[in-house]
């Protein structure tokens, strides 16, 4: 019963958005009237939306790669220093997204990267780096949980007795063992990156605005147009999440 109520609470707004995106008129009525694909056509014709769509995909995928490259060695190192310090570091890392809101991070970036010494505010690499910082704890936690569950120490000890040195242990045992958590972590990272608004709104330049930033404009126009833009964001998130899943063979 509770699950059913939760699903209704979760799915009802999405269903209404989908309905609104193909509704002709939706003013002062419970549901929209008429059926049209006009809003999607207008959206496709809008150059700023098309550019933002592409930017969001690029940022999400680059974030995914960057996060994976950092999270794997970080989780591996934390797992192998699983004493008190390691456990504390892992807990701090997990709390980071809550402790440091994107807004705080964004203001910090504006201060640091708008200076003459580091004039990178508005650049695509900085936007990707910011998304990596935001999503790194999620990926690291996913990989770390997997390493604990797998009993990696025993597997590596076994590999050592079979002749594998430290690098071979990592490459032939640890890394392949992490593949499932890398997939789930990547899906999470992509979903977070695609939907990220606060930080991107503060640090992205006009030419590198992400889809959620541009989407905000749609809400100042017709309801059907805003609904269509939001449905596209949802599809974009689902598509981008499917890419790493397919790439890692999950």
């Amino acid at each position: 019963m509770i699950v059913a109520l939760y699903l209704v609470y979760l799915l009802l707004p999405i269903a209404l958005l989908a309905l609104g995106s193909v509704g002709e008129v939706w003013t002062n009525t419970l549901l929209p009237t008429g059926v049209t694909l006009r809003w999607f056509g207008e959206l496709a014709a809008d150059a700023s939306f098309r550019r933002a769509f592409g930017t969001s995909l690029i940022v999400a995928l680059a974030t995914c790669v960057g996060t994976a490259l950092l999270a794997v060695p970080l989780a591996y190192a934390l797992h192998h220093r699983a004493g008190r310090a390691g456990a504390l570091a892992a807990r701090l890392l997990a709390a980071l997204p809550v402790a440091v809101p994107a807004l705080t991070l964004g203001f910090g970036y504006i201060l640091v990267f708008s200076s003459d010494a580091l004039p990178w505010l508005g650049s695509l690499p900085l936007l990707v780096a910011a998304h990596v910082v935001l999503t790194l704890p999620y990926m690291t936690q996913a990989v770390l949980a997997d390493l604990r569950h797998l009993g990696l120490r025993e597997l590596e000890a076994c590999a050592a007795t079979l002749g594998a040195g430290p690098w071979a242990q990592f490459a032939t045992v640890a890394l392949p063992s992490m593949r499932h958590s890398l997939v789930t972590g990547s899906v999470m990272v992509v979903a977070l990156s695609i939907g990220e608004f606060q930080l991107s709104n503060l640090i992205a330049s006009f030419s590198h605005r992400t889809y959620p930033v541009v989407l905000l404009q749609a809400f100042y126009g017709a309801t059907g147009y805003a609904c269509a833009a939001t449905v596209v964001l949802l599809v974009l998130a689902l598509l981008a999440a499917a890419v790493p899943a397919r790439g890692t063979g999950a």
Partner: protein
Amino acid sequence: MSIVLEDVVHRYPGSGQGVLGLSLQVAREELVSVIGASGCGKSTLLRLVAGLLPLQQGALAIDGQAMDRVPAWKRPVGMVFQSYALFRHLDVLDNVAYGLRMRQVDRARSRSRALAVLESVGMAEHAARRVDQLSGGQQQRVALARALAFGPSVLLLDEPLAALDAHLRARLCDEIRDAHRRSGAATLLVTHDQQEAMMLADRVAVMDRGRLVQVDTPRRLYERPATLEVARFVGHANLLPARVVGPGRVRCAFGDLLAPTQAHAPDTAVTLLVRPEAVQPDPPADAPNRLGGRLTRERFLGPTSRWDFAVPGPTPGHETVLLCEGPRYARHAISLEPERLLLLEAQPLPAGMGATASPPVASSPSPPPTLDTGGSA
């Protein structure tokens, strides 16, 4: 000697447990079982030999070569872990070929050798399967094949049968023994199962609190335990406080008994060890060491039975219960075969270990005599 350990130490920080000064030699083609209570340092010993833990003191040599500074991946050691530690991202054949691949054997040769080893443990038909599709017994065989595939001169087995049911354990014991013989490796097997240890081993090493207490053939260990700890740990044992009262005679809770006292001077306090099978049920009236009493518990075990027999004494109203074993139960009396009794050094017997004296059948001011039966009934 293939493995030579000299006074090796590895003490875990904090607990102070580990291996605390242990010397042992294992010859090529020899299988030595290491047994002892949980936390006595058995697995630590294996990890020291494998190079997974550093020696803090002492020396280790394999095939005459000092191993103190040789990392685990360069030692000629194969190990089967308690969890088997099979690589789930590889199929059975690639798991077994892993050690050969790490030693730069080319793919075709390593797979062909791996298949031959799988054949020897009866797993060749499962070569292409994923390891998580195998039963516990099959996983154990794959782990054994993987440890042997690259031809190590030392084989380490860490509780390899612990996760299996009793029936499968018995069958795999023979397979381990065969595989060990074929490999010719010096083998150290850690187990908490004393029967498994005695069945498999050429020699059994008993560990207690980080040290070796006795290393001997299974038969000598059982028949001539060096200490009370060994007597308690190996097989079932009735242990009774006693005193030598003269040549060939000891006095215990039952009164005077005939026993081999050659190694003990008169008036020496000793502990009398009575193995359950040294008890004869309902002997003739003139049998030596005949003790009257009553049967208090029966346990039918198929080919044999294990039963408790309560003997009155030393004071009126008290009984001492002996654990006995044999095909038939005693109803009225038992006798203890004098030549099968053993005297050990006297030590206070901790209360609450195994069966002890039965509660008083009548109120009495004196406490019941202590009787210790080591092992589990």
